[in-house]
């Protein structure tokens, strides 16, 4: 983050959690309707918003629904009626609203929501991981990922500019790591309401989006067949593509008002002269930056490419920045069932031929709350340096589970035991 002096005096420095930052970001955007259901590690967002609503700081309709599926249906409907909306969930809650998530995207309802990353149902785990994000990545939403509490607040505010932009009109999900960021208390510069109003006022100057009106004749989220379906899907895909450049513009306008930039689709950290690069996202990036500084002191030319926009996948800017690097290690906090490497690795791999010979490896770490420690990051950097030096390196490394890196790790247990 650009930590230059603030552009505006009067903003408040507070020490708050990632969840509180999300709630304040939502409050500053002045939503008309909030509907949500609590779930660890997201609950604090809803507690804070309920408090804001109760003490009159937030003038919105707060719908305390009986479950997440209703939450998403409520905000989708309110959004289609022209309202500004907010909801938040995590893990089990996110997948319980899955059909409504798909419908919201199909209806192009510009919902903004927060998803606090947690492992999904399957193996019960109240723990950090991006698997819930991966489980919804093909729903047609724009996905943004935050690293710090400040970025959580700023990205929630920015998300409204992106979702509700007349030329975009795609729902936006803001992701950040449960536990490691949701409960982290750190210094946050809370912007002035008038500055946020000014930043969002651009939307008021745009043409009014199509909305459902009682008594009006309009099909929203309607079914399409053949050509109609194809037209809607193609328009949706095109809007997703446009959102890349739009997000860059929004970041620049944000910097002009608030005096800080987080980068657009990606953040580059010590990348210009880097030979080897780690690609990561979310809270792990803070630790990676700290380790990179230590490695740089001992002469290792390593940098970080932080993915901030994950859907659409920022392939163009990533290729531009990564082209010609000797070796790239992609760190995933989730799994990509059916592929050996992590999801982000697998996706970046599709652009390998455009990278001018850069070699790539996959690191899987941080799932189920395992800590992406400084030592783990150091190991990842060292392994990526080995790859750059032409050494024989595993394509996929489970950093916190060395057993997975043994030569016979993929054999069935029966074979390891010596037969059934």
């Amino acid at each position, binding site marked *: 983050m650009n*930590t230059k002096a603030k552009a505006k005096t009067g903003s408040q420095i507070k*020490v708050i959690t990632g969840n509180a930052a999300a709630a304040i970001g939502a409050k500053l955007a002045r939503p008309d309707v909030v509907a949500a259901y609590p779930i660890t590690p997201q609950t604090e967002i809803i507690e804070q918003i309920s408090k804001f609503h109760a003490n009159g700081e937030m003038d919105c309709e707060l719908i305390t629904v009986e479950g997440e599926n209703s939450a998403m249906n409520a905000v989708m409907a309110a959004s289609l009626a022209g309202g500004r909306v907010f909801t938040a969930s995590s893990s089990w809650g996110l997948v319980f609203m899955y059909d409504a998530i798909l419908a919201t995207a199909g209806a192009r309802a510009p919902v903004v929501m927060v998803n606090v990353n947690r492992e999904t149902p399957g193996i019960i785990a109240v723990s950090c991981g991006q698997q819930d994000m991966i489980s919804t990545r093909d729903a047609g939403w724009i996905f943004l990922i935050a690293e710090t509490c400040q970025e959580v607040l700023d990205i929630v505010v920015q998300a409204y500019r992106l979702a509700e932009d007349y030329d975009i009109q795609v729902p936006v999900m803001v992701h950040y790591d449960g*536990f490691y960021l949701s409960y*982290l*208390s750190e*210094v946050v510069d809370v912007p002035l309401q008038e500055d946020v109003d000014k930043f969002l006022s651009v939307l008021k100057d745009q043409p009014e989006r199509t909305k459902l009106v009682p008594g009006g004749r309009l099909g929203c989220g309607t079914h399409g067949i053949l050509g109609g379906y194809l037209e809607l899907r193609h328009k949706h895909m095109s809007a997703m593509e446009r959102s890349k450049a739009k997000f860059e513009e929004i970041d620049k306008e944000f910097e002009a008002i608030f005096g800080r930039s987080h980068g657009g689709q990606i953040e580059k950290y010590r990348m210009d002269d880097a030979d080897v690069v780690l690609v990561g996202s979310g809270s792990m990036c803070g630790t990676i930056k*700290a380790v990179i500084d230590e490695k740089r002191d001992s002469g290792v030319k390593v940098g970080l490419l932080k993915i901030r926009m994950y859907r659409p996948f920022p392939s163009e800017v990533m290729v531009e920045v990564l082209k010609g690097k000797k070796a790239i290690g992609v760190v995933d906090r989730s799994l990509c069932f059916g592929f050996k490497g992590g999801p982000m690795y697998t996706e970046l791999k599709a652009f390998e031929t455009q990278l001018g010979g850069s070699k790539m490896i996959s690191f899987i770490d941080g799932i189920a709350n395992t*800590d992406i420690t400084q030592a783990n990051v150091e190991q990842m950097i060292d392994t990526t340096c080995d790859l750059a030096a032409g050494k024989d390196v595993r394509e996929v490394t489970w950093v916190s589970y060395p057993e997975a890196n043994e030569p016979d790790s993929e054999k069935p247990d029966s074979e390891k035991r010596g037969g059934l």
Partner: protein
Amino acid sequence: MSEVRFHGRGGQGVVTTSKILANAFARTGRFGASFPMFGFERRGAPVTAFGRFSDKPVREKTQIYNPDIIVVLDPTQRNSEAVFQGLLPDGMMLLNDSDITINVSHENLKKLGIINANKIAMEEIGLSIPNTVIVGAFAKMSGLLEIEPCCDALQDYFSGKKLDANIVCAKRGFEEIKLFDL
């Protein structure tokens, strides 16, 4: 950067202790970051929290394995292995205990602070929640903070009579902690 690990139980205000200290550091123009690690929230279960306090922005978002300072709110954990795990040389320990004698030892432990925080909390707020006493005691033992920013930070967590009583708790923690060089 000082790395501090807090050990206690759900309901003692372990997480709030670490938050208030991060807040107090921010009030001196420095930086603080803290977070707890637990699964489901529940009273009585062991809770660990981590605090990083620095002149520069804190970027690390990992747990703390090699603390400079350990803070133990739950006296029953005072000699547990987990508490001393990874303590760096010249380490400090702040212990909430009714027994103000040196009854812990570790090769890296050089400074010990003991405060009967539960007793002070009972006297001032009528509850055995030792966290704000610990905040003041931490400031004194570590030498990293004056008492004023700690008291100012309490405004973000308490109001009215509770605020006044907790300010007294922090001040008494600062004044009444017993320090031992080991």
